[in-house]
């Protein structure tokens, strides 16, 4: 498939204008996870202004973002910086450029969506199980797997985990909604991703 690797795709996805940004840095200044980022949010915006979409998409920073909206809320130019990061994540997956270190986050989000797609609502136990096995198979943070698993029983004991979750009546409908959203490729989810990888 062809990817339209231009700024428009980011702006269209994020519904915001990259050239409105005047590089004040307020987004970076307020970001709670900025210390973990390899490229600061304002620098990502700058890269986009320069047309360096590839570099921005491959940044680890976009997977550190916790979508807290602080940047968007305080931006003096009303640039939806958080939306830009969302868009970059989506494009990064479409173009398969995320670094291996980021795959865990992607994996989680994909697993999450897949879970909803199949159940209509989140089946948490299912999600945790799937996520952990996938994570394990990809050999990521093995110790983490065990640590979280330990919480499982505690949650069960507190009645916080249900072995069976209540499902939606027309689960096919949710599948159809997903299919339609994913359909228009560029703006949906292309290869791999939610359907491909996990359905197997």
């Amino acid at each position, binding site marked *: 498939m062809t990817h339209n690797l231009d700024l428009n795709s980011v702006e269209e996805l994020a519904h915001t204008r990259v050239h409105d940004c*005047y*590089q*004040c*840095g*307020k*987004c*970076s*200044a*307020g*970001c709670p996870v*900025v*210390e973990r980022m390899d490229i*600061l949010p*304002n*620098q990502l915006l700058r890269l986009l202004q320069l047309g360096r979409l590839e570099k921005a998409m491959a940044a680890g920073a976009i997977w550190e973002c916790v979508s807290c909206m*602080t940047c968007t809320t*305080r*931006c*003096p*130019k*009303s640039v939806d910086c958080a939306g830009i990061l969302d868009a970059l994540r989506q494009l990064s997956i479409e173009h398969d450029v995320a670094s291996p270190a980021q795959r865990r986050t992607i994996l989680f989000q994909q697993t999450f969506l897949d879970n909803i797609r199949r159940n209509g609502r989140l089946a948490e136990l299912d999600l945790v199980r799937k996520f952990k096995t996938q994570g394990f198979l990809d050999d990521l943070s093995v110790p983490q797997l065990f640590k979280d698993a330990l919480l499982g029983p505690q949650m069960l004991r507190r009645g916080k985990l249900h072995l069976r979750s209540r499902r939606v009546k027309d689960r096919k409908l949710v599948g159809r909604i997903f299919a339609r959203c994913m359909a228009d490729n560029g703006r949906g989810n292309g290869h791999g991703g939610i359907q491909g990888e996990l359905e197997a």
Partner: protein
Amino acid sequence: MPRIGVFTCWCGENIARNVDVQSVSEQAAQLPGVRCSQTCKYMCSDPGQKLIRDTIAAEQLDGVVIASCSPHMHLKTFRKAAAQAGLNPYLIEMANIREHCSWVHPDKARATAKAVDLIRMAAAKVRHNRALEPIKVPVTRKALVVGGGVAGIQAALDLADAGIPVALVEREPSIGGKMAGLSETFPTLDCSQCILTPRMVEVAQHPNITLYTCSEVEQVEGYVGNFQVTIRKRARYIDIDKCTGCGQCWNVCPSKKTPSEFDYGMGNRTAIYVPFPQAVPARPVIDRDACLRLTKGRCGLCAKKCQAGAIRFEDQDELVREDVGAVIVATGYQLYEIGRRGEQDRLSGYGEYGYGQYPDVISSLQFERLLSASGPTGGELRRPSDGTIPKTVVFISCVGSRDNAKGMSYCSKICCMVNAKHTMLYKHKVHDGQAHVFYMDIRAGGKNYDEFVRRAIEQDGAHYHRGRVSKITQEDGRLIVRGVDTLAGEPLTIVADLVVLASAMRPAAGVEELAQKVNVGYDEFGFLCESHPKLRPVETNAAGVFVCGACHGPKDIPESVAQASAAAGKVLLMFSRDQLHREPEIAHIQESHCAGCFACRRGCPYHAIDAAEIRDRQGLLVRRVARVNPGLCMGCGTCVALCPSKSADLEGFSEQQVYAMVECLR
């Protein structure tokens, strides 16, 4: 039958090369109403003008068409010639057969044909021209200056020194404006009060200046040269003439807890007070909301102490009328309210910086007071919360300014310089202190300005970080400033003792109401609009009303003063004649047809249209119609285009004239 003369010019070869002048002239002679048709090598030369004058006289012409160059070139010349021959100068029309014809159309046959057309149009138009007389407006040679900041003071003194009586209206109890409260001023760092207070005293003593303090403009009527202004003098409760300014009264006043306006709330004052020691007039005022006598009916200590018997608790507001020929608006600015969002405010506050929440987050004007020898700390730099000397101070640029999300897109222009000044003055007072500035761009575009900023960085060691601050919080009495240095590409947290916000300049409160009273336009932020940003920078669209200082846009002192002198100069120019002469090519309204819809009034860029009342013999109101104020109309014709009943028309470009021009092309 009209008697029109056509004069076609050769302009040497300029016209004749591409236009067959002789043929044109002959064809012109055939046009309806044309009595005679002549040519001349150089129509604007003395012989050319003589030809015109003589022919007008000999043929008793009542309309003249001159086919030559652009009217922008010689219309005035030919009008003068016509006047000399006794013909009303407005009965002249020009056909531009040079710029619009011979010079752009090398094909001689076509150019000649077009020249004839152009003359045909001019001849058709001139048949409907009317004799007009220049409009003469008498002038009251007295000026009103609104606002007594440095701009208003300068304008008032310039005018007064030139012999013009001036009424200076200031809302506060003293003149001086913001500058009176500044510490030292960039780019020279001279003491603000040292240079301003002598000027304030001059105002007080000038025989040509009537000073109204605690006063505001209530109403403005009339038009250029003839304004009738009503001024509301608010009750001061002091007889200024009796009072000697001895100070007995405020020393005994028990009501001491009102935050001082002059110190921006960082100190308190009494209920009877002078705003600051150098105030002009150097007389106290009673704050009616704080005075125990005026609110609760008890106390009166001040009056007991006053030996001059100057205190008048029964004082009332007073309305005074002044007749003036010109108005200068110099109402200055206020700083952006940087605290939480106000209920009604269109602008959205600055909650993330905690102004109004943390006492050590202050505005730039407050910092000026902390630096000032006459300030609440006597010039020692002590922070508001606990009076300690701040060792780390963070200055933040563009607070409110250039922040579209908060509602202001413009640059406040002065704050980059103010920040540099502040870091310097701070360093001069606290030698072991460190100043940090967060900035986006450094705008220091005046004479010696950039050098000034560099000095702050290079000599006084201020740390400049390019980036905005996102949030300020307080921990253990210190301020955590979370910013970024975009040049280093790193987030940056500074633990500061004091944060100074260089907040945006906004026009003074109430300026919109004032602008409406004098018919001056203002932009979306409330800054007053000049007539033309380059060529008429102190004039406004309301004839006879001028602007200067920060009410027109963010400005520093040198610029405010320059503009004030310019405004005074414009007023003097206006007053240099006993009467104003205005072009008579203005609009008029046929009142019998006017439907009173006032579409014209809404469209008129000069607010030149008033509502007039038509009354019958018994004085009963029959209807309201539009009426053009000849003192204000500039002749743009917008009203003509807007009038649905075709009651408005424009001299010189009347409906008849314009339609005749088009019709003859049929």
